[in-house]
C-alpha cells in the first residue's frame, strides 16, 4: 500500500517535471521564429517609419528630424499622385477581371467536362512563373509594332498598349489627369493572365465543398441549372470572393516586378506604381527618407485591408 502510494506520487512528480521541461522546449522551438519576426518585421517597420520622418535624402545618412516633410512632398508630387491613381485603377481592373474570369472558368469546369484536369493545368501553370518572366514575354506580345497588333490590324485597330499615354475618361485633379491610363490595360492583361489561376483554384475548391444534395434538392424543386447557380451556389461562394479580393488587392497594392520588367514607369508615369517609385528613388536616387515614406504609405494601404481580414479569418478558425 505504502509502496504503491510512493510509486504513484513519484510517477506524478516526474510527469509534472517532464511537463514543465516540455513547456520549456516548446518555448525554445518558437523562440527563433518569434524573435526574427519581432525584429525583422515589426522592428524594421518601426525603423522605416522613423527614416520616413528624417532628412536622409542623400547617400550619407542624415537622421535629423524632418517631421512630415517627406509625406507633404509626396502627396504634392506629380509622380506620386500619378502612382496613387494608377494603383487605384489597376487594382479595380485587375481584381474585377481575375474574379470574372476565375469564376466563369470554375463554373464551366464544374459541368462534368471531359479533360477537366488538362484545362485546369493550363489555367494554373502561369502561377508557377515569375512576374519577371511574365513581364518579359508580355512586353513582346503587346509590343505595338508587332505582337497581337499583327492580328488586330486586319480589323483596322492598332492599340498602342503600354506605350499609350492617354488617360481614359480623364479630368484634371491636383497635378494629374485623373482617370484610367490606357497603358495600364496592357499591364492588367499580363497580370490577369498570371493570377487568374489563383481565383480559379479558390472557386473550384469552393464549388467542390458544396454537397451534391444541395443541388439535387434545388433540382427537385424545379429550379433550372441557371437558377441553381444564381440562387443556390453563387451565394455560397461569397466568402471565397471576399478572400480572393483581399489577396489580390494586397498583391496589386505592392506590385513591383511585373511593371518594372514589362514597362517601367512609362511616359508621363502612366504605368508607374508606388513599388517602382520607391525602388527608383531609394536605390537609384538615394532619397532614402522619401523612399521610406512611400513604403509606409504602401504598408498602410495594405494594412487597411489585411488587418481586419486576418482578425476575422483567425476568429472564424478558432
Amino acid at each position: 500500500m505504502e509502496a504503491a502510494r510512493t510509486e504513484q506520487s513519484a510517477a506524478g512528480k516526474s510527469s509534472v517535471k517532464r511537463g514543465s521541461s516540455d513547456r520549456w522546449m516548446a518555448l525554445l522551438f518558437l523562440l527563433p521564429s518569434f524573435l526574427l519576426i519581432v525584429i525583422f518585421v515589426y522592428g524594421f517597420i518601426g525603423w522605416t517609419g522613423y527614416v520616413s520622418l528624417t532628412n536622409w535624402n542623400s547617400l550619407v545618412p542624415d537622421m535629423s528630424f524632418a517631421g512630415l516633410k517627406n509625406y507633404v512632398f509626396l502627396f504634392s508630387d506629380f509622380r506620386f499622385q500619378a502612382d496613387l491613381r494608377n494603383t487605384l485603377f489597376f487594382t479595380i481592373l485587375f481584381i474585377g477581371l481575375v474574379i470574372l474570369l476565375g469564376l466563369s472558368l470554375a463554373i464551366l469546369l464544374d459541368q462534368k467536362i471531359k479533360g477537366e484536369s488538362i484545362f485546369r493545368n493550363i489555367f494554373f501553370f502561369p502561377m508557377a512563373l515569375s512576374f519577371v518572366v511574365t513581364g518579359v514575354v508580355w512586353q513582346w506580345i503587346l509590343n505595338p509594332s508587332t505582337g497581337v497588333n499583327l492580328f488586330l490590324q486586319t480589323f483596322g485597330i492598332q492599340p498602342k498598349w503600354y506605350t499609350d499615354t492617354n488617360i481614359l475618361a480623364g479630368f484634371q485633379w491636383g497635378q494629374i489627369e485623373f482617370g484610367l491610363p490606357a497603358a495600364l490595360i496592357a499591364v492588367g492583361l499580363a497580370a490577369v493572365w498570371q493570377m487568374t489561376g489563383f481565383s480559379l483554384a479558390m472557386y473550384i475548391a469552393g464549388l467542390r465543398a458544396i454537397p451534391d444534395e444541395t443541388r439535387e434538392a434545388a433540382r427537385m424543386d424545379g429550379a433550372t441549372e441557371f437558377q441553381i447557380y444564381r440562387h443556390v451556389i453563387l451565394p455560397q461562394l461569397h466568402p471565397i470572393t471576399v478572400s480572393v479580393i483581399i489577396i489580390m488587392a494586397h498583391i496589386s497594392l505592392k506590385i513591383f516586378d511585373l511593371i518594372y520588367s514589362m514597362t517601367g514607369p512609362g511616359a508621363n508615369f502612366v504605368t508607374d506604381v508606388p513599388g517602382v517609385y520607391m525602388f527608383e528613388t531609394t536605390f537609384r536616387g538615394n532619397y532614402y527618407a522619401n523612399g521610406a515614406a512611400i513604403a509606409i504609405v504602401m504598408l498602410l494601404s495594405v494594412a487597411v485591408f489585411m488587418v481586419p481580414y486576418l482578425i476575422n479569418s483567425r476568429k472564424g478558425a478558432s
Partner: protein
Amino acid sequence: MVLRGVAKPASYLILIAASLFFLMPVYVMVITSLKPLDEITLDQMWTWPSAIDVSSYSEAFTKLAPNLMNSFYLVVPATLLSALLGAMSGYVLSKWRFKGSEVLFTLMLFGMFIPYQSILIPLIQFLREIGLYNSIPGLIFVHVVYGIPITTLMFRNFYVNIPDEMIESAKIDGANFLGIFRHIMVPLSLSGFVVVAIWQFTNIWNEFLFAVTITTAEQQPVMVALQNLSGSQIVQWNVQMAGALLAALPTLLVYILLGKYFVRGLLAGSVKG
C-alpha cells in the same frame, strides 16, 4: 434538356478559347527562341521558324548559367531552413498552445502580407553591418526570415489535423516534446513538407525585389539577370525568350511533376486556420 445540349459544346468552345489565351505566351516564347536573329522581324512574330536554330539557347545559357547556379545555391538552403523553422513554430502553435499563442500567430501571419519595401531600408543597413550584403548567404537569410509566416501557417494547418488523442497517448507512453515531434508529427506530415518545400522553392526562385536590391552583378539570382538581358541596347528577342524559358524551367518542371502539391500551397496562402 435542349439548353443542356447547346450548353455543353459552348462550354468546350469557351474553355478551348481560354486555353489558347493561356498557352499563347508559351507558343510565342518557344517559336521566338528557336528562330535565328534575322527572322526576328516584327511582321514574322507568329510564324513558325523556317529552320530550328538553338543558338539563342546557347547564348542565353552562357549569359545566365552563373546566375542559374546562384539561384540554386539560394533556393535549396533557404527552402529547407524556412521549412524547418516553420515546422518548429507550427508544431508549438498547434499542439502546445499557451495563453496568447493565437494572438502571436496572427501577429506572425501579418508578416507575409507586408510590402517588403517597408522593411527594405533597415534590412540593407543590417546586412551591410553584419557583412552579408551582396552575398547569397545574405539572400538566404532574408528568405528564411520572411518565409517564416507562410511556412508556420502551412505546418500549423497540417498539424492541427493530427488528432490530439495521438499526442495524449504518446505522452502517456512517456514520449516528450521532441519525441512526439520526431516520431509522430514529422512522419505524419511528410506530404505537408512537400507542399511547403514546393511553395518556398517556387516563390524564392521567382522573387525579384530582394534579389535586385540586395545583390549586384556576380551574386545575382537568375530573375535579375533575365531582367538585365532586356536592359541592353539592342533587344535580341530570341535570346530573351530563350532566357525566359531557361529561367522559368525549374519551377515549371516542379509544377508539371508535382502540380497537385503546388495548388495545395496556393490555397493555403489565403489564411484560414
